[in-house]
Structure formats: structure tokens, C-alpha cells
């Protein structure tokens, strides 16, 4: 008899994240396939009320402890490892986001079990689970199986729609006490909000995103021009932020913002998963990249294989012409 399927609920700024619901949707399918329970695991302090929205699961395991108040991976990892060691779930699904990042690394480490990383698909066949993971920046898909015993699974954002993980049903909540060493040497101090920029890219309808492929900072001008013509704003992928060409508030992707504009023009962006997860839900995605094999073209609706700066420039002109 297989163990249960767990989904670790992720809290951010007082609510359950979308990524959790996506994982619940996947978990529901896997639990069904394996013929076992789906349990959501919520760890925190005074956060019991959040469990109400986790009705897609058969039950919620709620762990309360002062040390878990700020979600630091060290403490959460120990608590959940102790719980998992006792309960022996078959699968532990954890969303792959910055919030759960440390847990993704520490939980399997503490349990001494494998992690199935970059997982974007999982199915049950013949009572065993087959996973599909994206490796090498999204350039290769690996189909794999993990041996017996608990397996932690890092669920990539977008694997299932969040809607499929929400439910009005009220879950059974089990208050669990876990014995774990609370002091860890890692102490949360405070959050640092980014400098209030002039622009909130999550509120924009039109975004022109630039990546490494625009070659140098001077070409930002061209992107700004197109953004102005469209009535939107410029944002960027991580490499552009690392170089200092755009401030942190303009970053789209895992460490940045998740955006859902009406139009997203991705210029010189390769489409690595960490970026794609931040923009995949845009209504219309137009990608420009010199490399016809760039992963961005799998996510975009329209693609152009040309120099990004040239296209942005021509597009700004074409847009202005039509707008009159």
C-alpha cells in the first residue's frame, strides 16, 4: 500500500500561493492514480485559518510552532522531515518558487531521499509514478522514475492550472505536534521591499521584455521606445538585472514578478524556465530571438528569428504608423 501524496502549502504575505494550488491539482491526480490520500501540509504559527482553502486535499496536516512563524527553510525542513519520517508519505510535492526554495533542498537532504527536480509532469502507470523533468535550462526533457521510499518532487509552476487545485470544500484539519530542534542558527530579521519604482510592471497591459540578446545597455532605448509607442513599460529577464541595466523591480521571473499583460514582447530572451514561469500566462506573447531553437518559442504565440534590436525598432515604427 503506497504512502500518501503530500503537498506542502506555501504561504506568502499571509495567503496561500497560486503555486500551491497548482501542486494540489497535480497531487489530486497522482493520489487518484495511486489510490491513496492527498494531504496538504501547512506549517506555521497561528496560520490555521489558511487551511480552509486547501479543500482540494482530503485532509490538512497543520503543524504549529513559534519557530515556524517566518517560514525559514531550516526550521521548516526539520519539522517536515520529522513529520515525514513518522508518516512516510510516498510523494511530497513542493512548489518550485523562491519561497519554498530552501525547503526543496533541505527536506530531501534531511530525509535522505531523492528530489525529483524541475518536474513539469507526473503520471501514474502500473502503480508507479513516472516523472518528466526539464533539464539544462529547459533544453532537455528527462523521463525518470525514482526508487521506492519517499520522494520529494519539485513542481514547476504552470504544470497544472491553479484553478484545478482550488475548491470550496472544507478539509479535515489534523493538528500535529512534531518534535524537532527549533534553533537553527538562521534567524529572519525583516523583509526589504524594493525601491518604489515609477512603474509596477504587474499592472501593465503592455510589456516589452529584454534579455541578453539585446547585446548592450544602449539598446534599451529601443525597447523603451517601443514600450512608449504601445503605452506600456520595459521589463527584463534576470541576466539584464544582474548586469544592472534595469532595477530589480523590473525583473520578470522566479525572483522577480509574475506578470499577466495583454501583450508581452520578449526580445532577446532565451526562455529559461525561471523566466517563463513569470510570464507564461500573458495573453499574447511575441518572441524575438536569433536562435530558432530557443525555448521561448514553445511558450510564445508568435516568433521571429531576427536581431532583437532591429525588430523592436521596426515594430515601434509600425505601431506608431497604425496608431496614427
Amino acid at each position, binding site marked *: 500500500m503506497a504512502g500518501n501524496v503530500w503537498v506542502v502549502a506555501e504561504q506568502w504575505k499571509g495567503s496561500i500561493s497560486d503555486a500551491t494550488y497548482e501542486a494540489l491539482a497535480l497531487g489530486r491526480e497522482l493520489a487518484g492514480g495511486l489510490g491513496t490520500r492527498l494531504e496538504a501540509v501547512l506549517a506555521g504559527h497561528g496560520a490555521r485559518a489558511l487551511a480552509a482553502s486547501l479543500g482540494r486535499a482530503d485532509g490538512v496536516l497543520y503543524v504549529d510552532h513559534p519557530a515556524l512563524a517566518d517560514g525559514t527553510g531550516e526550521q521548516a525542513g526539520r519539522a517536515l522531515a520529522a513529520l515525514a519520517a513518522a508518516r512516510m508519505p510516498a510523494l511530497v510535492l513542493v512548489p518550485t518558487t523562491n519561497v519554498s526554495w530552501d525547503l*526543496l*533542498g533541505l527536506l530531501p537532504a534531511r530525509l535522505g531521499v531523492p528530489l*525529483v527536480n524541475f518536474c513539469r509532469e507526473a503520471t501514474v502507470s502500473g502503480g508507479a509514478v513516472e516523472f518528466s523533468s526539464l533539464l*539544462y535550462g529547459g533544453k*532537455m526533457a528527462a523521463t525518470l522514475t525514482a526508487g521506492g521510499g519517499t520522494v520529494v518532487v519539485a513542481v514547476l509552476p504552470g504544470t497544472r492550472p491553479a484553478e484545478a487545485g482550488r475548491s470550496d470544500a472544507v478539509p479535515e484539519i489534523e493538528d500535529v505536534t512534531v518534535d524537532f530542534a527549533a534553533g537553527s542558527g538562521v534567524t529572519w530579521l525583516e523583509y526589504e521591499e524594493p525601491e518604489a519604482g515609477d512603474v509596477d510592471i504587474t499592472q501593465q497591459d503592455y510589456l516589452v521584455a529584454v534579455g541578453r540578446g539585446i547585446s548592450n545597455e544602449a539598446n534599451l532605448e529601443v525597447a523603451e521606445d517601443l514600450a512608449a509607442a504601445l503605452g506600456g513599460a520595459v521589463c527584463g529577464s534576470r541576466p539584464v538585472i544582474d548586469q544592472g541595466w534595469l532595477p530589480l523591480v523590473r525583473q520578470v521571473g522566479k525572483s*522577480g514578478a509574475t506578470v499577466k499583460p495583454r501583450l508581452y514582447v520578449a526580445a532577446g530572451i532565451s526562455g529559461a524556465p525561471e523566466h517563463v514561469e513569470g510570464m507564461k500566462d500573458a495573453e499574447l506573447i511575441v518572441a524575438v530571438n536569433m536562435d530558432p531553437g530557443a525555448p521561448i518559442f514553445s511558450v510564445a504565440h*508568435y516568433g521571429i528569428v531576427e536581431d532583437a534590436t532591429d*525588430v523592436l525598432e521596426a515594430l515601434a515604427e509600425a505601431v506608431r504608423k497604425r496608431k496614427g
Partner: protein
Amino acid sequence: MKILVLMKMVPDIVEELEVAGDGRSLDQEFLRFIVNERDEYALEQALLLKDRLQATVVVAAPDAPEVDDVLFTARAKGADRVVKVTGLPAGAGARATAAALAATLPGIDGVFPADLVLSGCQSIDDLDGFVAPLLATALGLPYLGLVSRVAVDGGAAKAVVSKEYAGGVMGRFEVALPALLGIQGCEKPPRYVPIAKVRAAIGAGGIETVAAKEGPAAAPIEITALAKPQAAGHAEMLQGSAREAAEKVADILAARGLL
């Protein structure tokens, strides 16, 4: 203060990746290896701390194609010692790598105990775990990942670090040393070192080689197939020059009422 930086080589995805004949691994013919990008930031962070606190920096990396260049470059940038850990099987996953490193590093003279261990918090080939937290757990060191800023007080008793969340929000943490930090970024991009200095480092030699001690065996993850990803969809490609394609896009935007 002693800082240990762990670096590793990963497949270079600038090259086209191909699947080998067995359908389950990478074709090696044109495969090149490049240093894990996040590890470069870890090294940069270590060197910045070295400048500020007169620390010593030791760089260790598992043996892999082209790792010598990386170690010599680290030396040229200012690392005090560079160590190559040999004997790890090719394609060893994160768990095997971390286990071997955990068994081997403490035995290297002058490396342990380190006050601070830095390593990239992710890499493109981490299939069965993340090396940094695995290693931290094996060594009994506290761990924090996605760190992009590290400040250490003069007494090297603790570090104050910034960790990345989403939407540009960072979290400030205090970490008691010794600890292992998973580095995501750094306050400055990795420094450039002129080729002449790297060549001088190559000429001077000095990569220490240490054979890996085997760590505890780990239940493997088995890849049954490797293939180029089948995308759920693919973009409709617009042909023509930049100008022509841009015109087509503008037409599409207009048709959708986006202009």
C-alpha cells in the same frame, strides 16, 4: 577568516545539446562544459569578503572536463588555494556529489573547519537534489539559499545576508557562522581577469588534487529517456526581414484591438 567556495562544471547550453544513441544521456561529441553560473557569483562574493576582511579563500571543484581552466581562473582572480576532487563518476548526481564532498573535504589540510562555505544555490543539471543544502546537511552546517548579498562582521561570528524572494522583495537574515550559504547573486557581477593572469596561473601550476572518498550510497533516480522537450505548442514563426516581420506583428496587434 576561512572561506571555502564549491564550484562545479555543467553542460554548456550555448552549444546544441543532442541525445546520445542510448536515448537516455547526452551525446558527448560536441558537448562542452562551463562553470555553473551561480558558482561564479559565489566565488565573486568570497573574493569581495576576502578584500574586506583579509580572509583566505579555498576553491574546490569535482573533476570534470575544462575544470582546470576554471580553477586557474579562480587562482588568477585571487583564490589562495584551488583543489580538484577526482574520482567522482561522470554524471554523478547532486546527492552522490554532495555525499562524496562531505566525506572528502574535512580531510583536506587547512580547509576545515571553514568559517563560511559558499556555493551556487542551483545549477541546470541538478536532477536529484541541490548540492549546497545536501552538503550543508551532511556537514551539519546551517543553510540559507538564494542569497545575493553577504556581510560578515569583523569577528566572523555571524553573517547578515539578503535572500531573494519574488517580485524584487528580499529578506534579511542573520546566520550564525560557520554556515553554508547558497549563492544566487552578488552585489557586483563576477570580475574580469585578463588572460595574461590566467596563463600566468597556469604556468605557475598549483592545483591540488584530492581523491574523493566515497559517501554513503544513495538510491538513484533513473532516467529512462532523454529527449528534446515536446512543447505543448510552438509559436507561429513569422518570416521575412526584421521590418517585414514587425509589420506582420503590428497587423496582428491591430486585428486584436491591442493598438
